């Protein structure tokens, strides 16, 4: 006590770490305060000079422009708030499709690296090294301007069984439309999901108690597809297919996937897939070889070794990497603006900002949205990560 007192007294004021810390932080606070004060006052003065009204009132005025593709009804009389919603949904759409495709591609290619087939292994290496090292924007342009633009016209479109059409205007798929009574079938999907969850818990408990395994995957798939199918049959199939048909110069009906969406998702999936394949490879390599040998000496089949021993341990390395890859996929989806896919960035930071001039509000709203999406991904992946993380002995 007294010694501490003595040092505090003998050291000069500036050599006391606590005083120094206070001074440094006060300086930083002062500097930041001045910085923000000056940019805010400048911004206010500039906006007044240019006649820009600040505030979020613009969200309730009519936008006056149309959007190429929207998941909710939208036309030129809709408000900027609606524009924001349309863009947000389009961004989420491209992100979800991109993440699913990239994960599939990445896992297939990552596991292919460990194939004992020389050609398959080379294919994986070549895929990763080519697509990882070429700028994403170039890949987007390549798919959009060089591949999809070279597809045949609507009249000569490629067709699969006269129900799926692919041409320069996009991909045309049949649409399943529900009639009255279809809501029971949708509800049964929800019931199936709950049933699968319950079954998993029961199977896990049974395995813990008795050591017997239960074929979760097959029974789960059976419930997921069987239950809605059964309900549909019982309610008398309240659905009909709407097929795309050639009318004039273009197809009508069904689901239309515009080429912008196709090019963007293909490019995002192929690019991110290469990074995910790398992550999977790193994850599998991080599992010590002794694990495989131990599993073999226990007499497990090669396929069981991969799924029961290697993959669960590799996931600990893969999941954190997947988290950052998914986040960068969402951030990279802003490249939509280069080919005109109407995502949040294109319609909001692009068109809306040009029309209203409210740069600060719009840019901040957009940034906040991407932040929120990434936080959601991060939260979900962290939950997943704690599920696969190494559980130490208690």
């Amino acid at each position, binding site marked *: 006590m007294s010694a501490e007192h003595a040092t505090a007294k003998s050291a000069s004021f500036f050599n006391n770490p606590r005083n120094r*810390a206070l001074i*440094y*932080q006060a300086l*930083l*606070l002062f500097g*930041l305060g001045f910085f923000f004060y000056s*940019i805010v006052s*400048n*911004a206010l*003065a*500039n*906006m007044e*000079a240019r006649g820009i009204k600040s505030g979020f009132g613009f969200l309730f005025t009519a936008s006056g422009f149309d959007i190429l593709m929207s998941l909710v009804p939208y036309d030129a009389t809709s408000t900027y708030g609606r524009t924001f919603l349309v863009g947000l949904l389009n961004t989420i759409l491209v992100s979800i499709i991109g993440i699913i495709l990239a994960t599939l591609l990445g896992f297939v290619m990552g596991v292919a690296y460990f*194939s*004992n*087939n*020389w*050609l*398959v292994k080379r*294919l994986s290496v070549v895929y990763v*090294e*080519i697509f*990882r*090292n*070429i*700028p*994403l*924007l*170039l890949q987007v*342009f*390549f798919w959009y*301007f*060089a591949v999809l*633009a*070279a597809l045949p016209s609507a009249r000569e479109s490629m067709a699969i069984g006269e129900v799926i059409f692919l041409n320069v205007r996009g991909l045309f798929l049949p649409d399943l439309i529900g009639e009255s009574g279809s809501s029971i079938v949708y509800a049964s999907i929800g019931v199936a999901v709950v049933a699968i969850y319950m079954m998993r818990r029961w199977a896990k408990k049974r395995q813990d108690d008795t050591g017997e395994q239960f074929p979760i995957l097959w029974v789960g798939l059976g419930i997921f597809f069987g239950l809605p199918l059964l309900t549909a049959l019982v309610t008398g199939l309240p659905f009909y297919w709407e097929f795309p048909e050639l009318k004039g110069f273009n197809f009508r009906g069904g689901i239309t996937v515009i080429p912008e969406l196709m090019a963007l998702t293909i490019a995002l999936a192929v690019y991110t897939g290469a990074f995910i394949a790398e992550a999977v490879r790193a994850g599998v390599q991080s599992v*010590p*070889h002794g694990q495989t040998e131990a599993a073999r000496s226990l007499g497990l089949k090669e396929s069981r070794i991969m799924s029961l021993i290697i993959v669960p341990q590799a996931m600990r390395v893969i999941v954190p990497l997947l988290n950052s890859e998914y*986040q960068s996929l969402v*951030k*990279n989806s*802003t*490249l939509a*603006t*280069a080919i005109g896919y109407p995502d949040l*960035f294109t319609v909001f*930071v692009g068109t809306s*900002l040009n029309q209203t001039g409210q*740069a*600060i509000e719009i*840019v901040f709203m*957009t*940034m906040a949205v*991407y*932040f929120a999406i*990434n936080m959601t991904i991060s939260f979900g992946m962290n939950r997943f990560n704690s599920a696969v993380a190494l559980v130490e002995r208690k």
Partner: protein
Amino acid sequence: MKKFIPKEAQPAPVETTGIIGWTRENLFSSIPNSIATILILGFLASFLPGVINWIIIDANWSGSTQADCTNDDGACWVFVSAWMQQFIYGSYTDSEIWRINLGLILLGAVIAAPYFLPKHLRNKLGVPMFLLYPFFCAALLDGRLFGLEFVSTDLWGGFSLNIFLAAASIIIAFPLSFLWALGRRSEMPFIRSVCVLLIEFFRGVPVLALFFMGSVMLPLFFPEGTNIDKLLRVWIVLILFMSGYMAEVFRGGFQAIPQGQYEAADSLGLSYWQKTLLIIFPQVIKVSMPNILATFIMLFKNTTFLLIIGIFEILSTTQTALANSSWLGGHAPEGYLFVALVFWVCCFGMSMISANIERKLDTSHRN
């Protein structure tokens, strides 16, 4: 008594050695494997000859205008060679292109300097050269400071601009991100939270949004009438973006340094900056090098995003060339392949270097 005469050792069965053995083991070891092999070979056979024909055999190599591309079944490489100067140097004044070349050579020299400088000069000369390079190079390309002909930044472009922007950004981001990473580890709560906010902001926001912020919001933040060059704003944004990512790389590096190193430095009586710069920094750099290179590759690829805000980097030049009225006719595949090749060579080369460093640093024994 019978004598035991061992038989001559038999040669290995023919199906387990040589090409046949290799093929059996690596391509046809099981039925699924054989199917995969046949599928891939079939795909390659149907696809490769056409591509090779288009790229090399039927391609048009010589000439200077579109009329020289007589063979429609082959690539028109004349398009690339005719636009080559634009692809590399942008619209930079013809007679002054030596300045860009000089800048590129200097960049190589700055990177190679640590290997050639005598040991006692390495830090004293190498580090200032490295840190001053971006400013010197900007002044050289601009020209006014050295009394050369002034070349406006509107004319800068092409692949050299991608290289300069990426290099100039990472060089400035180096000290900045190191400070941010230090701040994030600091015990002073206010400094720490400011650094965390900075890092998370620049990592969490799409880089395109940052570019837009630089081009539409930044002008609002300065007093009326101040006009900051577009390229300078882009440079600032790239530095901040890069610093966010590098700070996280450095954080990983800091975590790899054993606590004993800090304690040993403290017990020697070193000051905070002596400890940080002489003991910790060299070790952090060593373990972070592969990740720094990976981050740089990302930044380098992302310089193509500048197309969207109207900077004439190589991809933007390609788009301009493709839209040129005397080159209409779908040269998109040729143009994109060329740009892809240029980037691929650079990025693949850097990732090889990075893997090499990692292998050298990796002293763990793995099977």
